């Protein structure tokens, strides 16, 4: 009787997590919003009412109306369409950069945590150095060195968010590797790589998933910040940050040119943060605050 119960419990662990997640309405709404953004990023041509580069000098600075819900900019381009096309950069680069830094961060953090001593010391000192440089300046310098462009922007953001992962993974690996089941795996002759991949990493998945979600939010903010100072994405490619940069000189007379792109950044970042919170609560109810 009791044994059966335990088996049933193990099977339903995933369903428990799903159940807890679905109960968090804010997180579910965020997830839908993010899915919507991803659809926008994949099919902007079908969704946007106008082209992102279609200029119309007779229709500059039109206030929000039915034809142009977010208004038009100084070239008469539809802001809504440009915002929709802008998801491509923000979501695309955000996801790729986070995936990259996630992989590198896990490798580095796992190595530091698992091998300890000298390896750990060297890696952690390098991370200390990276953390001593404000990340925005580091990213700016890297983009300046590599040159503008989506790829270089991705690299810069990925590099500067590696330390965050490395620290989290290292901490989890360090606590995890002390536990008895690792000793058991080792005594049955498993190799280091196998122990890390099969036993340790799956058990620190929860904090990694949460960190990944949250760092997409940070990455999107960074993309916008860099484009805002004219680094990274160059016009006419629509990007939320560079739209704000272009519009900065007109903001005193036309509030909508800066309001909507910024609002999109905020909502997107907000959604990823909410999703991260929701995932944390669902994955680890003990941490729930």
């Amino acid at each position, binding site marked *: 009787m009791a044994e059966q119960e335990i088996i049933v419990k193990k099977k339903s662990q995933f369903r428990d997590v799903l159940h807890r997640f679905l109960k968090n309405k804010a997180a579910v709404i965020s997830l839908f919003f993010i899915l919507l953004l991803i659809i926008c990023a994949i099919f902007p041509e079908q969704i946007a009412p106008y082209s992102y580069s279609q200029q119309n000098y007779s229709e500059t600075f039109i206030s929000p109306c039915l034809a142009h819900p977010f208004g038009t900019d100084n070239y008469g381009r539809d802001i809504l369409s440009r915002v929709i096309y802008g998801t491509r950069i923000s979501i695309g680069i955000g996801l790729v950069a986070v995936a990259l830094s996630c992989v590198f961060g896990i490798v580095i953090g796992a190595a530091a945590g698992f091998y300890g001593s000298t390896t750990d010391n060297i890696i952690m*000192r*390098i991370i*200390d*150095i*990276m953390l*001593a*440089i*404000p990340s*925005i*300046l580091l990213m*700016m*310098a*890297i983009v*300046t*060195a590599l*040159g503008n462009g989506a790829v270089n922007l991705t690299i810069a953001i990925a590099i500067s968010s590696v330390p965050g992962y490395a*620290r*989290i993974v290292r*901490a989890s690996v360090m606590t995890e590797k002390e536990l008895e089941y690792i000793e058991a795996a080792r005594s049955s002759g498993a190799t280091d790589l196998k122990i890390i991949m099969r036993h340790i990493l799956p058990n620190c998945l929860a904090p990694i998933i949460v960190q990944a979600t949250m760092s997409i*939010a940070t990455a999107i*903010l960074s993309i*916008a*910040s860099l484009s*805002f*100072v*004219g*680094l990274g994405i160059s016009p006419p490619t629509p990007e939320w*940050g560079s739209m*704000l940069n272009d519009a*900065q000189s007109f*903001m*005193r007379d036309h*509030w909508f040119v*800066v*309001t909507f*792109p*910024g609002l999109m*950044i*905020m909502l997107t*970042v*907000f959604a990823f*943060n*909410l999703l991260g*919170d929701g995932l944390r609560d669902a994955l680890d109810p003990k941490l729930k*605050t």
Partner: protein
Amino acid sequence: MIRFIIKRLLMMIPVLLGVTLVVFTIMYFTPGDPAQIILGDMATEEDRELFREEHGLNGSFVEQYINYMKRVIVEGDLGTSYTTKMSVTKEIVARFPTTFKLAGVSILIACIIGIVAGVISATRQYSVFDHVATGISLIGVSLPNFWQGMMNIIVFSVWLGWFPPSGFSTPKHWVLPAITIGTSSAANIMRMTRSSMLEVIRQDYIRTARSKGQKEGVVIRRHALRNALIPIITVVGLNFGKLLGGAVLTESIFSIAGIGKLMVDAIKAKNTPLVQGGVLFIAVVMCFVNLIVDILYAFVDPKIRSQYMAPRRTAYKGKEETNG
């Protein structure tokens, strides 16, 4: 305690050396010839050669780096800014007070708002106040602060005309930049205070304090908040360091001549000596903030205090845990 501080100061040296190396490397590989950029198209090849000579730009990567470090360490000279021809040290020293004041005011306000709101939220978990405060703080964390700065200018200076949109001369000028910079710090501090307090409130010793017949307010302040302070101090330190490094974009938006704006302009102009000097300076400031944070830990937590007093190998480990 003194021994601990000296030890920490010594540990800063390799980090700072690493910082200079990283920045030097990035700047070295940045395309474009500074001589060309600074002197313009009208300069002759001789002029450019002279410029390179003057700024130590000849020789291999290693030679250049060693020359640079020699000057920094032996003479304490961070070089000369390409654009203004002023010494980098002077440029930084001239800008730092502004950044420091702005960061100081912002972090102070952020601390007050963040800690008070966080404590109330935690003691009334799931109340209306808690939901509203948590929601606002999450928005605060999600706001791109350059955009928030722009919106503040539109609303409070263009529409309402309450505060000037740029400059940093009178306290009235400080309000909008301080709000812009302080928002995300306040939000971060509030979130950390709330979660740390929630964890502490569940502890047995809080029940012990209540079982003594202690008033709820005193239980919260004397027993709970004190124990919740370590992670709060960490976040405050982190945010203060970030602000001291220059709220890079906010300073640009409000045209405030601080470190942040200086750095953005320097990176864009490929003004290598200024970038290197500035980043090094910011790194030093951050290291000092971290040191102060570590010293504050000792004031709050007697366990950490006794570790500092009797430095063992575990002392560093303990610090790592509280950081992580």
